[in-house]
């Protein structure tokens, strides 16, 4: 194969005669696994640049920043609360509950819930982390995204394990 084009591009690159598009070609070319022997010289430079260019923060970045912001809002809110309305931050209360329960020897591993009533979630105790519905919405779409990803992976995995054309994947109930 004739690598004359690439060789010319490299030379023009060092002379600052290449366009942005041509530089992109160089980076892509040198990022390949196998680069011909005689062109190896500058591989690390261009490949290194491509590495840098393609770098991104981790996949959970969005979730963590939203969590930090929710926490910031929570801190500000707590400062603003008057003594009469003040409740301890949720996790401190939970920690106190844990201590009390341990002392009272009531630490059980199973959830207990009254016999009949619906699903028994104590919704009154749910304290919003976000005042702003727009932020809450952003956090929700983020969360839905994560679960969606996981479910679609499960689905794909299941259909690999139980390949049956036209059937729904087998899911444990």
């Amino acid at each position, binding site marked *: 194969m004739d690598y004359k084009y690439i060789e010319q591009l490299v030379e023009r*690159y*060092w*002379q*600052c005669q290449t366009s*942005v598009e041509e*530089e*992109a070609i160089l980076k892509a070319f040198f990022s390949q696994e196998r680069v011909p022997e005689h062109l190896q*010289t*500058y*591989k*690390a*430079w261009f*490949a*290194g*640049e491509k*590495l*840098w*260019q393609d*770098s*991104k*923060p*981790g996949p959970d*970045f*969005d979730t*963590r*920043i939203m969590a*930090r*912001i929710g926490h*910031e809002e929570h801190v500000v809110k707590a400062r603003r609360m008057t003594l009469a309305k003040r409740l301890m931050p949720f996790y401190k209360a939970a920690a106190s509950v844990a201590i009390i329960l341990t002392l009272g020897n009531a630490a059980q591993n199973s959830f207990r819930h009254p016999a009949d009533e619906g699903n028994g979630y104590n919704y009154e105790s749910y304290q919003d982390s976000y005042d*702003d*519905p*727009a*932020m809450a*919405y*952003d956090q929700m*779409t983020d969360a*839905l*995204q994560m679960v*969606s*990803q*996981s*479910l*679609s*992976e499960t*689905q*794909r995995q299941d259909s690999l394990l139980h390949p049956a054309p036209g059937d729904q994947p087998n899911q444990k109930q």
Partner: protein
Amino acid sequence: MAGGCNFPGTRPSSLQREMKKISFRDDILPLKDKLYRMALGITFDTAEAEDIVQDTLIRVWGKREEWPGIDSIEAYCTTICRNLSIDRSQKKSAQHVLLDESLHGHPDASTPHEKLAAREGWGLLQNLLRELPPAQQAIIHLREIEGKSYKEIAETLGLSEGQVKASLFHARQQIRKRYTEIQEYGL
């Protein structure tokens, strides 16, 4: 994206339009990749860079009352990010000097293993860039990583196009020269 739902995120949601607000998620969070590349180009540390971007965004969030008055939210975020990056990288190199001195006795000592790593893509890039003056580093970043034209770089840095091209030429020549030296003599 490999499978799963695609959720809105490229435009303000009905909620945001309803509230008539600049959206953190749609206007500011998307800058994270760019800010990350910038922080990475200064600190050369992926974990540090990610922390810096997180801290930048938190700071920007903290100033949200000021958003309506800001001309370019992107420039605003970029400035904060750059300052944080420079700050952290200076603190780190101060630490490194101390550490090196205590471990090796001489600040410049490096093991053969480190020298080898320095020849591979990322390590080599870092070392070569660090040898350039900051102005040339910035131009390399904008050109090679962000793919900006000479005109755009000139506008961003407040230089003439001629100055940008001259600077870039010097930078690349220097890199080529050093590159060859390292390859041949392992310096």
